[in-house]
């Protein structure tokens, strides 16, 4: 499969790979996908007191597009408020990475991962 240069760049030099302590305050974790489907994304955000995402980390099991999509969104969410981050659309990701149609689901998964991380963070704050 021919990938765009941007996918190859994120795949070969993934940004923000890592794990945060899920018990730490201000950390939200989103894990989406399923091993049986060939992709699992774990996206973590660290939110400061002003509600701004100060750091993001990911780990992804999946194809090159899945890795690139999750790497890209960790870059995008940093510095954004939760509200702004929640507005990232899969189409933006797919467009930025020039994903072929058969790989659109990877960008959908990345959008889901952000939303899941935000939801997790909010649930922790309210409990």
């Amino acid at each position, binding site marked *: *499969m021919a*990938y765009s240069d941007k996918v190859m760049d994120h*795949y070969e030099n*993934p940004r923000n*790979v890592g*794990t945060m302590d899920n018990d730490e305050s201000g950390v939200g974790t989103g*894990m*989406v*996908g*399923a*091993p*049986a*489907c*060939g*992709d*699992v*994304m*774990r996206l973590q955000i660290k939110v400061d007191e002003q509600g701004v995402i100060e750091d993001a980390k990911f*780990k*992804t*099991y*999946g*194809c*090159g597009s*899945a*890795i690139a999509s999750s790497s890209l969104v960790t870059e995008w969410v940093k510095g954004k408020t939760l509200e702004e981050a929640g507005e990232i659309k899969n189409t933006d990701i797919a467009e930025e990475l020039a994903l072929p149609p*058969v790989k659109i*689901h990877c960008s*959908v*998964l990345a959008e889901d991962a952000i939303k899941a991380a935000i939801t997790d963070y909010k649930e922790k704050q309210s409990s």
Partner: protein
Amino acid sequence: MSSPIYLDYSATTPVDKRVAEKMCHYLTMEGNFGNPASRSHQYGWDAETAVEEARVNVAALINADAKEIVWTSGATESDNLAIKGAAHFYSKRGKHIITSKTEHKAVLDTCRQLEREGYEVTYLDPEEDGIIDIAKLEAAMRDDTILVSIMHVNNEIGVIQDIEAIGELCRSRKIIFHVDAAQSAGKTEIDLQQLKVDLMSFSAHKVYGPKGIGALYVRRKPRIRIEAQMHGGGHERGMRSGTLATHQIVGMGEAFKIAKEEMVDENKRILALRDRLLTGFNDMEELYVNGNLEQRVPHNLNLSFNFVEGESLLMAIDSLAVSSGSACTSASLEPSYVLRAIGRNDELAHSSIRFSIGRFTTEEDVDFTINLLKEKVDKLRLLSPLWDMYKDGIDISTIQWNAH
């Protein structure tokens, strides 16, 4: 960038230079270009001689009579001709066929077509090592079973079926036995004087011959009849019409002749390379061999690198030409049906790589492969949340995943 190291000999092989050289003499005005069916002049007679010499060479590799070889366009056509041809010819005897779930698509899709025509097909599940249990095959046989089609060597996992025992069983029940031998010719011994196989499919391009040519063995004693699928000038004793492709046939004959001469030594060398490859991965965690390792051709090694997705691994090892059972490498987005049929879970199917070794593989190629795989699998595992969970002692099969 230099060409990737070729480790996909089960997909196809390069034409051996000796074969290509010989083929060149059967194309141009200066060469032997005649139509083997032309009976009225020297050009036709010479072409016919070349075709018959090739037929003898193909028959010799499998210890058959040259009269039992029918030229086709490849193993797919041979499978179609054998299965549809026998099913149609013997349809008055019954309409039940038995095959297995790990057969090549050329067999499975042909059986599906026969189901649409009113035949009934039983698809056997192989055991977890990929081998068919003879008792289960026998249990599936019925009074109206007319045909059993089981491959000799599997294209994905390289396991060798016990076609000797299956042949005995079929013969005792008067059931016709077809074997797809595309992946076994030249890789393991085939003796059709001993084996009770009635129909056998062959391909040239898996044996260092050209693409676009194959053969079907049709037994004469006891005589097996098939209905033609291609009608026309009555070539190949009416079983397969169409002008014979002399240069392709000569290529297949030469390739099979070389295979007969060199197979024993070549297999020893290739087995040593495969053992070297597998030993090189010995210290890796969560590595699984797919399919029986003993009852297997030396050329094949199918491994699953758990917690790493196959397509991303292929991207990382793009200096190798290998294939994967991952969904992402197939048009259907389904993981390998062969690995699923032997009970591998989706994760292991997604993370599988087939290495197939051949005539031009070197020790350096194998060593390079080992080092590259280790480095890239480690890198991708550090990216993998599943690997994290495994390392933390979490059993991922107990997690409720949201399948999408």
